[in-house]
């Protein structure tokens, strides 16, 4: 038996939890080789002291100290953290939605109401035309904005002063129309976003916030990296393979 075989066999026996000191082949080689004999003796000393060390115990009252440090709350004990995180995320999303709604409504409430005399008593055709060219822009089914001038004079005259004074109700209808148009004709509507905002001023702060957010994200995202060079083959290893231990250590 060679010395490297002695070492390999010793490790194999130890891996199988067998005593190398009682292996006949190892002992035979150790009789002839003082170096391997010393290795065997070193392992003997080591294993004896490992056995002694397994009797290490913490000081008395250790378990009591651990448990006393633990705040036991059975109601929360063992509650899965994933559930808690979903709950928090849900609460945050709801709060954000409520905040956005409040801002939008607030913007709409502070919008100046149209002057009642200009609309309430249309006496002449010129006044009717002025009323018809109000900033409300609707987008028709043919992708073109429906011009207020296309409305008939009769339709304009049908608007009673009582209806026109309900600015809040009107603005809600305008919102609804604008959003419907936006949803059905997105590409065209995006081009006319300014027109939509004119009709629905509440959208402006939302759009500004989104633009800011997208701008910030674009600035913070790093530029794409260059492709990494291919790894070099290991020296002295014709097969190009390394053992797991060699890679890690």
């Amino acid at each position: 038996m060679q010395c490297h075989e002695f070492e390999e066999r010793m490790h194999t026996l130890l891996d199988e939890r067998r005593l190398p000191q009682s292996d006949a082949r190892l002992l035979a080689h150790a009789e002839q080789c003082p170096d391997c004999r010393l290795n065997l003796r070193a392992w003997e000393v080591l294993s004896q002291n490992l056995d002694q060390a397994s009797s290490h115990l913490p000081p008395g009252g250790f378990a009591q100290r651990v448990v006393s440090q633990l705040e036991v709350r059975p109601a929360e004990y063992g509650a899965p953290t994933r559930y808690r995180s979903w709950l928090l995320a849900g609460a945050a999303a709801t709060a954000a939605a409520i905040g956005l709604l409040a801002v939008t409504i607030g913007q709409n409430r502070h919008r100046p109401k149209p002057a009642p005399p200009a609309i309430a008593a249309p006496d002449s055709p010129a006044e009717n035309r002025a009323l018809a060219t109000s900033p409300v822009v609707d987008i028709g089914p043919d992708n073109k904005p429906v011009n207020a001038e296309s409305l008939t004079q009769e339709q304009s005259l049908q608007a009673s002063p009582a209806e026109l004074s309900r600015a809040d109700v009107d603005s809600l209808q305008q919102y609804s129309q604008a959003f419907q148009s936006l949803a059905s004709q997105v590409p065209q509507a995006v081009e006319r976003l300014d027109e939509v905002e004119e009709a629905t001023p509440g959208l402006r702060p939302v759009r500004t916030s989104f633009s800011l957010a997208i701008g910030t994200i674009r600035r913070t995202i790093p530029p794409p990296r260059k492709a990494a060079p291919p790894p070099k083959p290991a020296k002295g290893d014709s097969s190009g393979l390394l053992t797991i231990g060699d890679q890690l250590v």
Partner: protein
Amino acid sequence: MTACQAIDELRPLVKSCLAGDQTAMLALVARFQGQVFGLCYRMLGQRQDAEDAAQETFLRVLRNLHRWDPSRDFEPWLLAIAGNRCRTALASRKRRPNVEVLADRDVDDPSGHGSANHLAEEVELALRDVREEYRQAFVLFHEHELSYGEIAVAMEVPLGTVKTWVHRARRELIERLRSRGVLEEQRHAVS
């Protein structure tokens, strides 16, 4: 006692712990404190540090007991947490370069085995010089008698890596004991 029997016995204890039963928690800590403290002591080399690490380990274990998979062995899971605590303690110790770690010595030696204590100290010093991953794998295999597979799971590395680490730890420990002349002294003491 087989591993299956041990798990069967452990399940009701864990269930009681999860329900907030302090007596069950005490029983659980008392049952595994030797293993956890032993590993922490081997890894850190100081009783006080080992006690702190063992205490943190059990606090984490008791707080995260619901994460333990009852179909698996408890001990590798527990010792994995203890190993992580020790590595954190070692990392924080490295950040404080002025702290010198001295091996604890058993002051009271009722048996009067000075030579045996000296050897134990030499082994401890040799272990401390070994890289911490090697040391953890070696201690888990030879002292706690975990299989290579269990150590691989506990340390989250491939099985082959664990084997390599244990072999290297053995080689280095033998080499260190030889280079310090411990075996020569032994021989002279015997003759």
